[in-house]
């Protein structure tokens, strides 16, 4: 991020201060801009690597600014900062081109929203550099013990979930949160084992199989499950070597959750949709890193400092890094 030019569109001095502190520390130059149509259009003519939009402002002006950036400066990367992953933000993701949302973590401080500096710097760095893969950067401390399990058999899913549960117990994670975190791990692993693999014709290979089926995976079908904790967040990643998710498919699966509608369940076992519907309601941050046709890495993080209450109040971030 060193030397990058980043603009923050915000009317909130506290947000500008938080972003400036984080990104200047990361080596960027930070410019500010208000929501006026004239100001936003002028900003588009400037040489910028990334534009941040503070969405806790008039919904109409926020939509206008994001849509203007999308239509007049398609090459410009846009990241939205917001309190809730719903309403206007859901519309901008599902009906527009918005791919990156970083939450303001209201649960961390009562008086003012806090933007997690690690999360902000990591997301901006990924957007600017295009280097998207890796779990480590989402943990705020170095030298942490990151556990890794490679699944070469569909039947090993339960084993690694039990190991993950032992880890959560060892770090004395709140009981209510453990169930939430384990369910997300279970869903992401099922998707990677059953929904991701493609046959020689590019068709789903195991999607028709019952999720209770136990069978060996080919060497190119192994799934890598990693997890760690920096005291603040538990972070996990599930990676496969297919890259079979695309933006359209993801938004179809995540749509009901983002619009805060109840999920309608397809009665076939071969759908990743219900799983991702459960996942989007159960995370602090969800990141899809996809190199289409080659690799998918899904990273989920959970704010674990203050039990279920702190977790629910911590906001939700969503990032779709999809490279064709």
């Amino acid at each position, binding site marked *: 991020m060193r030397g990058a030019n980043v603009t923050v569109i915000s009317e909130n001095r506290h947000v500008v201060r938080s972003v400036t502190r984080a990104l200047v520390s990361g080596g960027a130059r930070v410019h500010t801009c208000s929501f006026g149509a004239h100001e936003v259009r002028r900003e588009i003519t400037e040489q910028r690597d990334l534009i941040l939009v503070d969405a806790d402002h008039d919904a109409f002006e926020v939509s206008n600014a994001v849509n203007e950036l999308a239509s007049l400066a398609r090459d410009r990367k846009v990241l939205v900062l917001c309190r809730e992953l719903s309403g206007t933000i859901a519309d901008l993701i599902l009906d527009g081109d918005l791919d990156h949302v970083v939450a303001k973590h209201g649960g961390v401080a009562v008086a003012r929203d806090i933007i997690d500096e690690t999360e902000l710097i990591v997301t901006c760095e990924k957007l600017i550099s295009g280097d998207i893969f890796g779990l480590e950067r989402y943990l705020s401390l170095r030298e942490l013990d990151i556990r890794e399990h490679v699944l070469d058999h569909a039947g090993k899913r339960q084993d690694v979930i039990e190991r993950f549960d032992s880890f959560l117990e060892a770090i004395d994670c709140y009981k209510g949160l453990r*169930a939430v975190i384990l369910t997300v791990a279970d869903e992401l692993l099922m998707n990677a084992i059953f929904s991701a693999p493609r046959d020689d014709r590019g068709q789903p290979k195991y999607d028709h199989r019952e999720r*209770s089926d136990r069978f060996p995976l080919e060497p190119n079908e192994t799934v890598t499950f990693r997890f760690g904790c920096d005291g603040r967040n538990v972070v996990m990643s599930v990676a496969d070597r297919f890259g079979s998710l695309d933006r359209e498919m993801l938004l179809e699966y995540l749509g009901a959750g983002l619009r805060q509608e109840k999920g*309608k369940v397809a009665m076939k076992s071969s759908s990743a949709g219900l799983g991702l519907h459960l996942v989007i309601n159960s995370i602090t941050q969800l990141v899809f890193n996809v190199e289409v046709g080659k690799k998918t890495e899904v990273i989920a993080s959970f704010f674990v400092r203050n039990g*279920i*209450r702190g977790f*629910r109040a911590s906001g939700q971030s969503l990032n779709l890094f999809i490279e064709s």
Partner: protein
Amino acid sequence: MKFQVEEQGGTTRVVVSGEITEETDFAPILDAKGRTILVDLGGVSRINSCGVREWLNFVTALEARGRQLILERCAPVIVTQLNTIYNFAGDGHVRSVLGPYYCARCDREDNQLIEVAKTRSVPESIKCSSCGGQMEFEEVHDHYLGFRDGGS
């Protein structure tokens, strides 16, 4: 998942505990004698998307057999599904749920029974039975009983 089945007159009471997943088979409960099936879900620790499908198939099959379903002591993970999944309880009736509480003084997590029909809103805090301090409600207060407003 484990379950215990008790026949009580025209009612069959089923106590479910553990994880509801793709391995779960509700078929033995379908053979129960009672016209009313009362399912105690207080011991459910986790439910995944396959478990949700198994559950919905079970609810649908019960309805097809003309049984009445009553859910009681729904664990927080079940309340999440009631609030997230369309028609999770089918035509059944949710009698009670367990609400998660936390005592900061003695670092204790506990679930408190909430009778759905008798409760207008979930208590924000209760007395800790261990230290006498205040236990705070852990979930999003306004949304926890949201399933009562329809769709479930």
